[in-house]
C-alpha cells in the first residue's frame, strides 16, 4: 500500500454508520497502516444524515476526505446518495444495499455485508477484517456478522 486510501461511509443516524466505519478503521489499523477516522457526533444521532471519513495508508495527514477524492462511498441508505456523491472520485467505488441479494441487504448484518463488498475493492487482508469484526462487535454478534461479510465478499 503506497498511497492513502479514502473511504466515506454514509447514511442516516441510527443505521450503524459509525459501527461500520469502526470495523473498517480497525481492519486498517490491524493491517499496520496509519489510520484516521473522523466524523461529527451530536445532533447527527437523531436520524439525520451521518458520514464517517476513514483514511489509511503509509501516512495520513488531514482527517477529512477531500471532496472528489473518496476511493469508495459506502451507503447504508441509498436515498442519501445525493448528499454524499460529490465526495466520490471519478470511477470511484459505489457500495450500496441494492448491490446485495435481498437476504443480505435487509437483515441486521446489512452493514457488515456492505463491508464485505467493499473489501473486494481495497487491499486489506481477510484476516484483518475478521479480527476487526471480533474487536468491534459484541461476542453474540460476531459469528453472524463474519458470515454476512464472507457471503458478500464471495458474491459472483
Amino acid at each position, binding site marked *: 500500500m503506497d498511497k492513502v486510501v479514502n473511504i466515506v461511509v454514509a447514511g442516516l443516524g441510527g443505521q450503524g454508520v459509525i459501527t461500520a466505519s469502526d470495523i473498517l478503521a480497525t481492519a486498517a489499523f490491524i493491517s499496520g497502516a496509519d489510520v484516521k*477516522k473522523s466524523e461529527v457526533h451530536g445532533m447527527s444521532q437523531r436520524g439525520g444524515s451521518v458520514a464517517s471519513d476513514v483514511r489509511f495508508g503509509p501516512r495520513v495527514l488531514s482527517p477529512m476526505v477531500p471532496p472528489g477524492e473518496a476511493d469508495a462511498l459506502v451507503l447504508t441508505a441509498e436515498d442519501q446518495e445525493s448528499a454524499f456523491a460529490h465526495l466520490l472520485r471519478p470511477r470511484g467505488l459505489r457500495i450500496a444495499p441494492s448491490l446485495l441479494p435481498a437476504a443480505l441487504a435487509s437483515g441486521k448484518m446489512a452493514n457488515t455485508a456492505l463491508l464485505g463488498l467493499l473489501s473486494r475493492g481495497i487491499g486489506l487482508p481477510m484476516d484483518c477484517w475478521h479480527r476487526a469484526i471480533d474487536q468491534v462487535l459484541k461476542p453474540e454478534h460476531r459469528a453472524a456478522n463474519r458470515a454476512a461479510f464472507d457471503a458478500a465478499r464471495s458474491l459472483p
Partner: protein
Amino acid sequence: MAERQLLSGDEAVALAAHRCGVSLASGYPGTPSTEIIEAFAGLGGRAGWAPNEKVAVEVAIGAAFCGARAMATMKHVGLNVAADPLFTVAETGVDGALVIVTCDDPGMASSQNEQDSRRYAIAAAVPMLEPTDAQEAHDLFLEAVRLSERWKVPVLFRMTTRVCHTQGVVVAAAEAPPAPPIVYCRDIPARVMIPANARPAHRRLRAKLAEILAWGEAGTLVREHRRGRRMGVVANGVCVPHALEAEPDASVLQLNLIHPLPIERIRSFAATVDALAVVEEGDPVIEEQLLAAGIRVRRRPEMYRFGEHDVPRVRRLLAGEAIPDPPRPRGKPPQLCNGCPHRTAYDAFKGLQVYAAGDIGCYSLGALPPFEAMDTLVCMGAAIGVGLGMRRVLPDSEARKVVSVLGDSTFVHSGITGIVEMVYNPPPTGHVVVILDNGTTAMTGMQEHPATGRGVAHDLIGRVRLEDICRGCGVQHVEVIDMHSAGASLPAKLAERLACDQTSVLILRRPCLLTVKRLRELEAREAAGCGQEGCCG
C-alpha cells in the same frame, strides 16, 4: 515498547490523564468533549459529572489546591460558564496540576455559537496548549501537567471537533511524570483573593507568563516542518495536517503553544520563507499577534473566519482566493425520535400557540418543522430568564402565552437560578415553566446528571429531585405529569396554568426512549442486589 492503539483525541487525553495519575476529573457533557470523562472513568480514573462547568472547574481547583493533579472538561461554551473561576484561579495559582480542557466547534456541528476559546487564554493570562491529532493529544496533555506543576498555574488545553472526534494511531510511549503526594499546605495570601492579596497575585501571574514565554520560545512546543522556502505557513490544531497535505512544497511552523505565542520563533521562521500565511480556524488570533509584532504576514480574507477548514479550503486560502466555498448538498436534518415524549409537548405548544422561550438539548429540534414551536434559544438555562423578561414587558393578553421550556439536565445546569428569579420577581400574569424530564442528558449521548441520581458509570450515587427544588424555592404550583400514562392531559393542563396568574412548573416525566433498555438492565441488576455490570448477567 508501548503498543499501538486506535484512539480518538478525547480518548487519548483520558489515557494520558490516567497514566500520569490525575486524581480527579470533573466535567459537564458537551459535544465534542463528552468522551474524555467517560473514557477516563472507563480506565478506572476518579471522574464525575458536575451540574455545570463552573462547578466542574471549582471542584478541580479544590483538588489542585491540595497538590493533586486535576482535570476539568467542557465544550467551548462551557468555558463561558466557568470563566469566573478561571480568571481568578489564574491568579491564585495551584499546588498540584490543573488542566482545563475546552473543546471548540468550528463550523458548529453541534453548538449554538462558533466562539474561539483561544481568546480566553489571552484574557485570563493562562498558558494554552493545543494538539494537532490524537497522538499529540496524549503527549501534549502530559506536557500540560508538567507546565502546570512547574509554574503552579492552570493550563487551558484546547481541542476542536476534528481533533476530539478523529481516531488515530496512538503510542503511549512518552514518559508520564510520576504524581507527587497529595498534601494540603495552607497559604492564605496566595489563595484568598481579597484585594490586598490579589494585587501582588496579578503581578506574580504576569511574571510567570513572561517566564513561560521564554521557555516556549526555546522549547519543543513549536515544530518546524521544513520543506520549500517559497511559502511559509504558521498553523495550529487540525490546520497543521490540512496545510501539510494541501501544499506539499510549503514549510509549516506548527504551534502547540498557543498562549503565550512564541513570537520570536515565528519571526525567525518568517525570515526563512518568501511569503508567510497563517492557517487557523475561527478568529484571526495568531494573525493579529503577528501583525502587532510587525511580522509581515498575508492577511486572511474574512470568509475564512467562518466554518471549519479542510484540505481544498486551505489550498484556496493559501492561494489568496476569496471566492465562496462550493455549495454542499444538504443532507437530511435530524429529528425528534418517533415516540419521543418531547413530541407531545411541542404538539401542545403548537395547538395552544404559545410563545416558547426554549433551551439547549434534543428538544431544540422543536424549533424546526413539523413543530416550529420553539421561539428562542440562547444559552443553557436561558429559557426561564428569557421567558420571564417576555412576560414582564408584553401586554397581559400576550404575556399569558409565554412558557419557558427546558430539559432536566439543562435545568440543573443553569435553570435553578431562573426559578429563583421567577419566585423573587414574579410577572403580574405569573409564569409557566415546562421541564421536559427524560431522565438523561440525551443530546450529548445519554449521560447522567444530578437529577438521575447516577454517576458517570451509571452507578447509583446522590440524587436531587426537580420537584423538591422548585417547591423549595417557593413556586406556587409544581406538578409532575407522567407522560406515559397522562400525556394526553397536557394541552388542558397547560391551558389551565397559562390562564391563572400563578407561578407554575410542569415536570413532564418519561425516560428517553434511547435509555429505556439500559435503565431496565440497571434496575434489574440493582434489584438483584448487584451493581456490577456483567456480573448477574
